[in-house]
């Protein structure tokens, strides 16, 4: 009896040792060499797997970051500078601090200014709706209001405002991952720099129709009149395809364009003081008047030839 037990123990022990040797050899032979830093980087990532960086999740980002020669093209918008600092420390790279960004909705066609031309009763999805027709208002560029962006946001940072019918971004929660921007079939959501203390000015419209058509469809549409571009002293505004765009890199937040916009399509938020529309208007008009006078004076001085040119 005791012999059976002893033999069993011996056989199983030998067998175990043999098999562990096999396992060890196989493990050595087929070893996958992985940079241990990938795990380290992954650990400091937010772990949302949102894809905001352009990679399929945080692990894929970590792999790419480790492989890359620098971090110029790899940036986690969710973790921001803090996480990127940690990643850089692990990898021994330098990281350029990036200005924090936020999702900005470029449509301000609320229910009151953008009259409905039809009622949509199909499946409530912007993508489905956009494939069927241009939308239930006269504006074929504006928000469709079915909330694909709300569904796409993994951070609960976007909600639909039932009064305006437009999405609202909660700045505190928004990580600028860009999921909403990709979900919007009309391309209305832009990831823009948050601005100093959150102050920013942008054109909240993407209507590329000509002025009268745009105005007819929506009272607060950008009509491409170009007043903002003429007003701006920082060369930050371009009007292309009947739509103005403010370059956030050049904008100095003077809010002159916002005050001068005839339809109110330019929005500024998080400013400490409310917009002094009349004051700014008077200031701008005074400046433009002076500039005209100066130009006229300059034109009057030289020869008549230039005068003629001016007339033309």
């Amino acid at each position: 009896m005791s012999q059976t037990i002893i033999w069993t123990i011996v056989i199983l022990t030998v067998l175990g040792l043999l098999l562990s040797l096999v396992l060890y050899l196989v493990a050595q032979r087929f070893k996958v060499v992985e940079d241990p830093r990938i795990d380290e980087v992954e650990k400091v990532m937010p772990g949302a797997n949102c894809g905001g960086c352009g990679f399929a999740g945080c692990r894929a980002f970590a792999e790419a970051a480790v492989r890359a020669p620098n971090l110029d093209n790899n940036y986690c918008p969710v973790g921001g500078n803090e996480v990127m600092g940690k990643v850089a420390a692990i990898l021994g790279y330098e990281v350029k601090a990036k200005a924090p960004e936020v999702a900005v909705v470029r449509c301000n066609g609320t229910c009151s200014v953008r009259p409905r031309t039809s009622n949509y009763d199909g499946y409530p999805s912007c993508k489905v709706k956009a494939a069927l027709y241009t939308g239930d208002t006269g504006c074929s560029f504006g928000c469709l209001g079915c909330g694909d962006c709300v569904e796409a946001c993994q951070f609960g940072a976007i909600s639909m405002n039932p009064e305006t019918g437009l999405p609202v971004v909660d700045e505190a929660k928004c990580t600028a991952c860009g999921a909403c921007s990709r979900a919007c079939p009309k391309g209305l959501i832009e990831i823009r720099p948050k601005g100093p203390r959150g102050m920013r000015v942008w054109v909240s419209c993407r209507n590329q129709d000509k002025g009268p058509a745009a105005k007819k469809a929506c009272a607060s549409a950008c009509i491409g009149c170009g007043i903002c571009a003429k007003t701006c002293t920082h060369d930050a505004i371009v009007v292309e395809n009947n739509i103005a765009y403010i370059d956030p890199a050049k904008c100095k937040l003077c809010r002159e364009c916002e005050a001068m916009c005839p339809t109110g399509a330019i929005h500024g938020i998080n400013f400490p003081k409310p917009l002094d529309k009349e004051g700014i208007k008077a200031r701008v008009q005074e400046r433009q008047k002076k500039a005209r006078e100066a130009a006229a004076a300059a034109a009057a001085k030289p020869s008549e030839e230039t005068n003629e040119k001016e007339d033309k």
Partner: protein
Amino acid sequence: MAKRTFSIGGVHPHDSKISRSCAIEPLAIPQTVYISVAQHIGAPAKPVVAVGDKVKVGEVLAEPGGFVSAFIHSSVSGTVKSIAPRADLAGNPQMTIEIAVEGDEWAEGIDTSDTLVTEIPEDGKQILEKIRLGGVVGLGGATFPTHVKLSPPPGSKCEMLIINGCECEPYLTSDFRTLLEKGEQVVVGAALIKQVLGGVPCTIGIEENKPEAIAHINEVIEKLKKVSPKYEGISVLSLKKRYPQGGEKQLIDAVMHRQVPSGGLPISVGAVVQNVATALAVYDAVQKNKPIVDNSVTVTGECFPAQANLLVRVGTPLRFIIDSLGGVPENAVKIISGGPMMGKAVANLDAATLKGTSALLFLTAEQTARKAPSACIRCGRCAEACPMGLEPFLLNRLWKAGDNEKLEANAVADCIECGCCLYSCPANIPLLDMIRMAKADVMKIIRARAAAAKAAAEATKK
């Protein structure tokens, strides 16, 4: 013997052909027509007129913009007012030629008399050229240029011409009225197409709910057979009523018992299908030199008091048609261009008719209201109803998961968007909406891959 029909799927919606007894009447010509240059599948036509030009009915306004494209002719006489983008019925801008109507003067060479021309020319090429010049496109819904369809690629052989007189969509009656009132012209048109295809046998498929049309066309064929031997081999086949029998692939299955392989064209099983209205357009183009300048449109709906089948000039604003029949009924909440199953909701009444416009249908809130979707109970009714043998419940799930590879493997590109799955789903799941999205995405991938392969092949050649 049991009546023939297609072998898989299909549904039986009530046919609601309430305008079936209304004869086709010509509608007055509006003061302005808006003729789009994108009235067919393929490249939009290129305008050849300029603002201020005087045009007559039947004169060319735009030339084909590619191989798969068609001529566009003026449907009225008058002055070209503008050539600019204009919103179509979905609100999308389409290049449109606006013509202010002055009188009704037809271009020279067009025979506007009612005399029936029964002689079939010997030369198929000549017929085909006339079809091309007449701007004839498939009027069954897809508006595929007819001359392209009638030029089978080398190596493929047509064995049968099928004329589609099913009109399986509920409410629509324009094809039915055309068969009854212009049966002779349709049969001559069929004989012309048959001649182009080398004298293959021709079957005119008509659903059993149109017995008058079946009897009439049989009579017409007997009469014409005495006139010329060219009419031998044309026959009528009465088909069981079932939606979507008018689908090209379904009709081939019903008539020839052959199934078009996944991704294949009808010609791969030796069939060419043309609609009744297309056959009439072919007759007009070849025998009368008359291009497509008008088409018949059914205006109907339970809530619409004036049922009508109208002969409408191409480019007539929808609002003009509706106003001439007493305006939009108060309880109508939705206007559909086409049938209730596959038609498109009209968002813009200022849009104008196209060659392929077949109907304007008014529906009430009760008729169109969607019920709230609930969870899939895996009953499999959608898979049973799908005439293409797809599994809509699976495609819906794959689309939600974003799995384009599996969507392609499960032949989402074969979907004909007939709506049988949505119609039969007891859980009211918007299957068609989802599958249409999925199909669009997968088609984009397939096209991109084909373009890349083509570019690579060209690169290696060099």
